[in-house]
């Protein structure tokens, strides 16, 4: 029943995003053109070859300005605030990224590519001071938008309960939210966490919705690749790891450091493996989400870039390839919508599983938690 409801919600999300897809395709097209255009000007038309990887990684990387699209030579977008903490001199500096967009110096800072062939640009001090960059980058802004959206959606849904009382049937978004929450509670929290489900459930819900809404926002045309950024997934995995460690009990550490196996000598082999697995769990969480979302973005962009690769060979082949490429990218886009929800679910589910393992033994009916993880760790 709740599975069906969730599915229809995902379908709805598909439908909504589908409308904006044509824009996305056009935007990517423009991006590719810009890239080739800037390449042309930069290299004085020495090399007319398309630099597909720079286009794709330019879209995926974080940036100090939010570039929306380009028409020929005019770039449409908006600059974002750069916030620098200078550790050598001390003090915080805030200025618009438009001041350093073209490579110029401003207040002793300038934007520089990290290395040759790298798409990553970093704010560096001209004097070589040690600085920490706390800029509101594209990803940060996207995340802040998602935070505002999330807070608004969830609190407005919560208000409905206060307004309508507990016994009135849920309507609209409240209904959809409720279906997801009940699904997560009954399929994720309760089987893994047992009686302690209520304690950890708010965390799982926040993880799930935070990842999901950012996955969806990342799929919007011109959207940022926040959940496909390792900093985001690293933080989420680190928080999950901290929660796992903080909730772990004696039984968990006992099993970890002194496993009850018969030939005692094998413990020498087992204990390091167990300790490694403890570290690998959050690392796997981090890499799974990061790789899935980033790969999705790359594939969509790559499929669209195929038009220009073929176009570079021959104009007509390029035009002829448009429908194929569009069909592929629409398919990938829909797949990514699904992956966005699935990855959010898996992150929340595995967090629950790992916490469940850490608190296992507090109550006897918890033993199934371990078996679930064995299957799902592959996903």
């Amino acid at each position, binding site marked *: 029943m709740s599975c069906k409801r969730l599915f229809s919600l995902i379908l709805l999300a598909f439908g909504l995003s589908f409308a904006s897809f044509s824009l996305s395709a056009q935007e990517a097209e423009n991006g590719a053109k810009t890239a080739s255009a800037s390449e042309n000007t930069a290299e004085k038309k020495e090399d007319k070859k398309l630099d597909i990887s720079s286009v794709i*990684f330019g879209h*995926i990387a974080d940036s100090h300005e939010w570039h929306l699209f380009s028409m020929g030579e005019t770039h449409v977008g908006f600059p974002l605030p750069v916030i620098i903490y200078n550790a050598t001199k001390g003090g915080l500096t805030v200025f618009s990224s438009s001041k350093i967009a073209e490579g110029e110096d401003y207040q002793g800072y300038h934007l520089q590519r990290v290395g040759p062939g790298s798409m990553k640009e970093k704010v560096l001090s001209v004097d070589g001071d040690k600085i920490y*960059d706390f800029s509101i980058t594209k990803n940060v802004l996207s995340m802040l938008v998602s935070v505002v959206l*999330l807070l608004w959606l*969830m609190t407005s*849904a919560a208000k409905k309960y206060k307004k309508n009382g507990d016994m009135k049937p849920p309507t609209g978004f409240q209904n959809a939210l*409720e279906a997801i929450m*009940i699904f997560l509670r009954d399929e994720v929290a309760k089987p893994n966490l047992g009686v302690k489900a209520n304690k950890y*459930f708010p965390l799982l819900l926040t993880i799930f919705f935070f990842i999901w809404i950012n996955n969806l926002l990342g799929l919007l045309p011109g959207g940022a690749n926040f959940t496909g950024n390792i*900093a985001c997934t690293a933080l989420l995995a680190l928080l999950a790891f901290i929660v796992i460690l903080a909730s772990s009990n004696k039984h968990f550490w006992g099993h970890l450091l002194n496993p009850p196996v018969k030939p005692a000598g094998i413990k020498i082999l087992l204990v390091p493996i167990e300790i490694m697995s403890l570290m690998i769990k959050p690392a796997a969480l981090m890499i799974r989400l990061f790789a899935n979302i980033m790969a999705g973005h790359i594939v969509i962009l790559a499929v669209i870039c195929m038009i220009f690769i073929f176009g570079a060979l021959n104009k007509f082949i390029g035009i002829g390839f448009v429908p194929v490429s569009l069909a592929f990218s629409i398919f990938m886009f829909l797949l990514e919508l699904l992956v966005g929800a699935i990855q959010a679910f898996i992150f929340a589910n595995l967090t629950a599983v790992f916490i469940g393992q850490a608190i296992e033994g507090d109550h006897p009916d918890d033993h199934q938690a371990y078996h679930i993880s064995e299957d799902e760790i592959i996903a």
Partner: protein
Amino acid sequence: MDLLTPELGLFFWTLVAFLSVFFILRKFAWKPILNSLGEREKGIAESIATAEKVKMEMSQLKSDNEKLMAQAREERTAMMNEAKQIKDKIVNDAKEQAKTEANKIIIDAQQQIQQQKMAALTEVKNEIGNLAVEVAEKILRQQLAANDGQTNYINMLSKEIKLN
């Protein structure tokens, strides 16, 4: 490798945003919603339990009613039977009484008829006697008016008298 090195700024802002979202939503969204869900589930469970109880009570009541109905029906039948018996008895009694009454009346009537018949007969006899006497008187008067007749009669009477 650029993609695999997390940046401090994004890491920091994500930490701030995620934790604030977590604490705000926990207080203002998840707890109220989960409480409401719990309350509703409890309410629904209670409603179902109550409905079940009411259903049980209803079926109990229904069977009670049926028992009562059956009892009432039995009583009614018994009463009907009794009434029928009483009615029959009354009717029979009445018939019996009527019969005896009629018999008595008939007997009385017969007696009266007998009496009146007797009286009438007596009267008729008396009348006949009188008539006979009168007739005889007349005849005698006529016969004895003449001398012959007187002598004949004396003779006849004297012949009747036998002196043995």
